[in-house]
């Protein structure tokens, strides 16, 4: 399976996204420059973390207008799997491919640490091979991860099964103390209605090797490979 990693000015998680697929998943992966207008032969897209355009104005606000985004939207509309991680998540919400918005953390400082998220649904290609309820140990590193939606949007997300990850403790229990940024309803990641576009604040692409603190991010990346194989089988 072939992954594409979209690189914008100020992306800095592109290296981790590329190496997690290459060294962790051992699948094929290619960089895609934001000035390109096509994404070529890719089966899945990763929108990496970083500070595109310095996160100036709003995180992801300027990057969403890059030339490549038209092709990304088309890929999304054709049902292609897209995973936005951290800044990638922010770009996808700014682009309207995912609901809600990401604001500065409640405590107003950047936060980098290993946390736990609970997988809420297996309807997305990035969680298809993970049992709902599974707790994943992943790093976060962001200053603007407070996920915000209106109450009725939240109701819709719940109704449509669009909440993909929630912050929890190691046992999978939700408490406010384990919500690192003040996100609404402890939401760490969501998907679009169709389920093929997923965004999350944590960094699965930094968790692909026990040597660097954990490898549970691979479950998310591997999931899309298996989903793809199943799709191929029919």
């Amino acid at each position, binding site marked *: 399976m072939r992954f594409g990693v979209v690189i914008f000015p100020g992306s800095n998680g592109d290296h981790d996204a590329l190496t997690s697929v290459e060294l962790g998943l051992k699948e094929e992966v290619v960089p895609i420059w934001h000035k390109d207008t096509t994404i070529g032969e890719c089966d899945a897209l990763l929108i990496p973390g970083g500070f595109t355009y310095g996160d100036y*104005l*709003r995180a992801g*606000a*300027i990057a969403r*207008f890059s030339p490549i985004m038209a092709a990304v939207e088309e890929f999304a509309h054709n049902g292609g799997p897209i995973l936005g991680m951290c800044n990638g998540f922010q770009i996808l*919400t*700014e682009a309207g491919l995912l609901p*809600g*918005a990401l*604001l*500065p953390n*409640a*405590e*107003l400082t950047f936060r980098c640490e290993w946390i736990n998220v609970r997988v809420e649904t297996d309807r997305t290609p990035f969680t298809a091979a993970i049992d709902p309820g599974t707790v994943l140990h992943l790093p976060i590193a962001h200053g603007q991860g*407070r996920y*915000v939606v*209106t109450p009725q949007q939240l109701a819709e997300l719940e109704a449509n099964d669009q909440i993909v990850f929630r912050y929890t403790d190691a046992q999978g229990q939700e408490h406010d103390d384990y919500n690192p940024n*003040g996100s609404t309803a402890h939401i760490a990641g969501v998907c679009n209605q169709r389920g093929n576009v997923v965004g999350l604040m944590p960094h699965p692409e930094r968790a692909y090797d026990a040597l660097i603190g954990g490898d549970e991010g691979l479950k998310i990346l591997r999931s899309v490979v298996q989903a793809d194989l199943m799709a191929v089988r029919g």
Partner: protein
Amino acid sequence: MIEESTATGRSYLAEVFVSLKAAVNDPQGLAIRDGLRSLGYADVEAVRAGKYLRVTLRAASSDDAHAQVTRMCDQLLTNPVIETYQISITVLADH
């Protein structure tokens, strides 16, 4: 780099005031309010933090400037999901 615009018309200053929607939590505003109170400003009731953008542009008229900046706000400068904005236009003496 300083670029002289080729456009005709004159220079306007558009001031854009961006606020978070009332329904959206504003921890920064709360932190500032608490900071002020701890400095002894007991009469502070609330603080909301937003953005103040000064856009200098050339336009045919004040209305044209307003129309352009309105489009900029809807497209890029603000996020309708969480923000509202106001615009004020003033003419600049030409350099």
